[in-house]
């Protein structure tokens, strides 16, 4: 077998492109993206906890300032647009994960096409209205 490193590009383009393969690729990309998001989210929550600790120590003004700067960053349009991508990643990862479990545990490969259609309809049906509501909230 040829080493994959020298043929990586060839391997990528020799895949047979069909919807289930696209789902697999999106599942990986969204999963890796979500690990980065989780890390950032833990840091933001740490910031809020620091504000709580300041408040408990009687530094009310510093606590409100810290809280205000964090809450303000979360209401920044750039952050909200980034959150729409996080929502898309979560929704896709969840719905495709459910599809994978149907395939693995309930012999869902028999209904491959129906499952793929259901996945994409459910994903877009939630993402589009929610994304629009989030986008509207900027203005």
């Amino acid at each position, binding site marked *: 077998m040829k*080493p*994959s*490193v020298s043929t990586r590009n060839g391997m990528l383009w020799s895949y047979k492109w069909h919807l289930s393969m696209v789902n697999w690729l999106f599942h*990986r990309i969204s*999963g*890796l993206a*979500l*690990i980065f998001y*989780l*890390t950032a989210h*833990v840091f933001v*929550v*740490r910031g*809020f*906890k620091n*504000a*709580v600790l300041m*408040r*408990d120590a009687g530094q009310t003004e510093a*606590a*409100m300032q810290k*809280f205000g700067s964090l*809450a303000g960053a*979360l209401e920044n349009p750039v952050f909200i647009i980034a959150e729409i991508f996080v929502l898309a990643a*979560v929704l896709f990862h*969840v719905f495709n*994960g*459910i599809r*994978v*479990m149907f395939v*693995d*545990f309930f012999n869902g490969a028999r209904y491959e096409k129906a499952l793929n259609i259901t996945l994409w309809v459910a994903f877009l049906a939630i993402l589009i209205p929610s994304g629009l*509501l989030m986008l509207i*909230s900027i203005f």
Partner: protein
Amino acid sequence: MTGRAKRSYTFWWFFQRFTGVVLVVTLLVHMFGQHFSLESGPHRSHLSLDGIAARFENPWWMLFYLVFLFTGLVHGFNGVYNVVDDYIRSPGWRMICTWGIWFTGIVLFFWGTMTVFA
């Protein structure tokens, strides 16, 4: 080649599905508990310092977040390991990546747990 694989792929295959189901449930609790407000239509719930402080003092939320954090990290980093397992062939790099995954996961769990308790 004889002998068993060093890693039980069946166990981790099932583990990823089990933690996935746990995460769907805990994520829904998290989102409806902290981030959504359904009063007068769906919108972001407004953060308040008092609300956040109250949740950090509630032992049930503290327990919930330890479970959520731990499950999220093991599911996430097991997924990263699967990617490494698929694409990294060199034994040296595989070892470096595996140690990196463990290190980052443990640091994040420690950091998150510290956030809940102190």
